[in-house]
């Protein structure tokens, strides 16, 4: 990546959508996310959240880290990098996956986009360039950090398909979950994937920064009668937890950032068994994961349904003998599931679906601290999983 000679004078940049988002952001609340200003909220976190559940919410994904992988060995490279079988992601498809270090501990998770024949994009929340280059030894691949060359928007919610259709994206309603398609707009390329971090019907739009403002304008004009609203980070965090998605730095510590080896997690320990394919003869972490499969894991990710309505942030989880068996890694009151939900990391053998435990919740009321030992149950699957997520074509298109 070629840097401007004065690049060091600016640490954080406005996103290519900033001219639009800064007008809509009534709270003026932005925070730093990698190299960009990112709206934490626009007007009201709950209302923003409900836009992606009841109409359409738009989230500025600019700061996501994006890498382009090309070259004759691109597929072999990704297959060695990731624990899953990447050859199953055909051209025009997207796949979720994780990658591990040699010890089989998760470095990060992300999505692989098979953009064109021989061209893949890898999108991750954390910076991965160093790890990707570390993994490139012996492969004929070109790895480019395109984080600043491509920007993106998440367009999520039950009316998102209708909005995009109204925007002129022909036959968008035929795009299946985890499919992607290229459109021409303003003489540029707009790539649309049916992906997202909300667990709802939704799309992500990928474009060069020059297209950012025209696309935003066209999108909001088309979505006006479909209830389109911008949503900030806090609203997105709610949606992702309801969907049961894990997040680095919350539900697991990236292995390459950990000092203590017991503080990292393997894919098995994050309930991602389905992403580990031992039929591949080699991938980074395979040896350690095979051993873990033989000898058993240390931790288990559990989804908790907790009594009451006090979010169990960072709570200890106890068994009936009052022994600490794990911690809550993410928690909230779920407006859509109407439940007090949490993700927890429990010591094996705890965490079988149906198990009942106690969660120690501290909460403040008018500056006074209260403590409650709330009963909870381990449940299976996402907390909120609407059929429209998978429906093709979506209901109103």
């Amino acid at each position, binding site marked *: 990546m070629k840097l401007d000679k004065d690049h060091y004078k600016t640490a954080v940049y406005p996103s290519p959508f900033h001219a639009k988002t800064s007008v809509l952001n009534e709270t003026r609340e932005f925070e730093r996310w990698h190299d960009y200003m990112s709206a934490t909220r626009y007007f009201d976190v709950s209302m923003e959240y409900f836009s992606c559940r009841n109409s359409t919410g738009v989230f500025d994904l600019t700061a996501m880290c994006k890498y382009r992988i090309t070259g004759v060995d691109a597929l072999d490279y990704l297959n*060695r990098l990731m624990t899953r079988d990447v050859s199953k992601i055909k051209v025009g498809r997207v796949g979720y996956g994780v990658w591990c*270090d*040699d010890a089989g501990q998760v470095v990060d998770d992300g999505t692989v986009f098979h953009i064109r024949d021989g061209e893949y994009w890898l999108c991750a929340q954390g910076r991965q360039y160093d790890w990707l280059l570390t993994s490139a*030894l*012996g492969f004929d691949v070109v790895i480019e950090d395109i984080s600043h060359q491509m920007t993106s928007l998440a367009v999520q919610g039950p009316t998102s398909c209708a909005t995009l259709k109204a925007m002129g994206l022909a036959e968008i309603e035929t795009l299946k979950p985890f499919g992607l398609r290229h459109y021409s707009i303003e003489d540029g390329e707009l790539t649309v994937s049916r992906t997202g971090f909300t667990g709802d019907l939704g799309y992500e739009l990928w474009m060069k920064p020059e297209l950012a403002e025209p696309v935003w304008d066209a999108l909001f004009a088309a979505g006006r009668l479909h209830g389109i609203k911008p949503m900030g980070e806090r609203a997105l965090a709610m949606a992702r937890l309801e969907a049961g998605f894990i997040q680095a730095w919350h539900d697991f510590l990236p292995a390459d950032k950990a000092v203590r080896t017991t503080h990292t997690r393997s894919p098995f320990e994050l309930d991602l068994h389905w992403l580990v394919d031992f039929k591949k003869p080699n991938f*980074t972490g*395979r040896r350690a994961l095979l051993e873990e499969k033989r000898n058993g894991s240390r931790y288990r990710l559990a989804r908790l349904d907790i009594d009451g309505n006090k979010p169990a942030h960072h709570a200890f989880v106890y068994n009936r003998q009052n022994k600490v068996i794990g911690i809550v890694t993410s928690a909230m009151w779920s407006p859509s599931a109407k439940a007090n939900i949490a993700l927890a990391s429990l010591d094996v053998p705890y965490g079988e679906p149906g198990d009942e435990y106690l969660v120690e919740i501290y909460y403040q009321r008018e500056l006074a601290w209260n403590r409650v030992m709330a009963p909870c149950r381990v449940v299976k699957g996402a907390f909120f999983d609407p059929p429209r997520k998978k429906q093709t074509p979506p209901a109103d298109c």
Partner: protein
Amino acid sequence: MYDAIIIGAGHNGLVCAAYLAKAGRKVLVLEANDRVGGAAITRSFGTGFKVSAGAHLINLLDPVVIDELKLESHGLDLGQKTLKTVSLSHKGQHLVIDGDQLTGQVSDEDRSAFADYKAQMTRFSRLLNKLHLRPPPRLKPGRLSDYLDLLRVGAGLRRLGQRDMRDFLRIAGINIYDVLEEHFDNELLKGALAFDAVLGNHLGPRSNGSVLNALHRSSGRINDDNGTFASPPGGVGAVSEALAKAAVALGAKIRTGAPVEQLMFNGDTACGVRLQSGEQIEAETVVSNADPKRTFLDLVGARHLEAEFAQSIHRTRCSGNVAKLHLGLKSLPRFTELDPTLAGERLLIAPSADYLDLAFNQAKYGHCSDHPAMEITIPSVADPSLADEGHHVLSAIVQYAPYRLKGGWEHAHEPFKKTLIDQLDQYAPGLSLQVISSELLTPADIEAEFGITGGHWHHGEMTLDQAFMLRPAPGAGRYATPIDGLYLCGAGSHPGGGVMGLAGRNAAQTVLSGGKT
């Protein structure tokens, strides 16, 4: 189908083959060159001269290996006596080191300090030798046997006694220059001792870690004496031939002219090799005597390894810094004022530790030394069969000659050879006129002839960061590798370089016990 294929018939490969065959395994050794021995061979050069093309003296071949494989009954002959070391002075005031005795213009203080120094270094290197006879301890929590291994190391240190233990811990990681300054005044003595601390490595006398290399080099015993040298009749190749005879007698099969191109896999497990000829040979186990980079990055391929391990092999430091000079001479050269009976001994050009340091400075910046250090032998003095009647062969190990020479070796090869001959002429006036044939092996030539990455004699720097369980890299430090069915047995593994045979012996024991990383 074979139980084991061994890639490379260097001395460690042959030792490993012999031990595996002795245990009843069906073993095939595949050698790329058309003779056994790897870099421990005797071959001809020029017109009618023969020379040990790589290593030219034996100082580390372990008595345990000699005994266990009954090498003497297979023709091993280390010669009549061990060699004295002569630290040459171009003014002719040479210093002769014979065991712990010094002859020359040297003070009584230095004489007595040398006897003490030599005795202490011998005690230290015998401790090191004990560690060499086993796979290195594993640094992984959980297993009782690993704790016992570590305890054994600690107990060995403790048994040195308080004074020696403190000294050992103080000097093992530091540089030889400072240690020699503590003990001695004589420049020729310090030069000779410093030379042994840097030989074969990218180290100068002021580089930390050089003391460890000195200890390593004196950890071998010839005739039960540490730090001495033997010049086997027939050259070092005769040692390899004895090893090959022992291996064959025990049932191993050896094929020369059979370069391996790739390892073959069954799923994630090594299951044999494919030769450059296309022939495929299957085996239960593959043991590689090739250097770690060649083994993992070429024969296996980085893509068949996990990412971090591949990187750690890639980062292994193995750029050679040693060249080898072979001269075919009309007659025995006359070194200024040197007693002619000493011409067959081990002659050093390392007149002071500072001389070595200045020579190393140039190598640090990618140049070869203008005034290099040399270890010279004239093996034809004791073994006339190496040259025609009346002729002599001179073999010199030359330091420093960096693998990654600025500008490349292509154009520097001949000028450097001339530098070396001119320098020899300074110590033995008229020598340059006696030269009939000459040959210089730079690290690039060593890489090409022997297939060693970087032309590094020891298959990788012999320094703390690449020693014991870290040799060649974590995850492959105990002969087993991350790839099931693949083991290492070469100098790139513990205990490292020099014609020792212990890496091959330890590797065989690991294979036989089904050892894992």
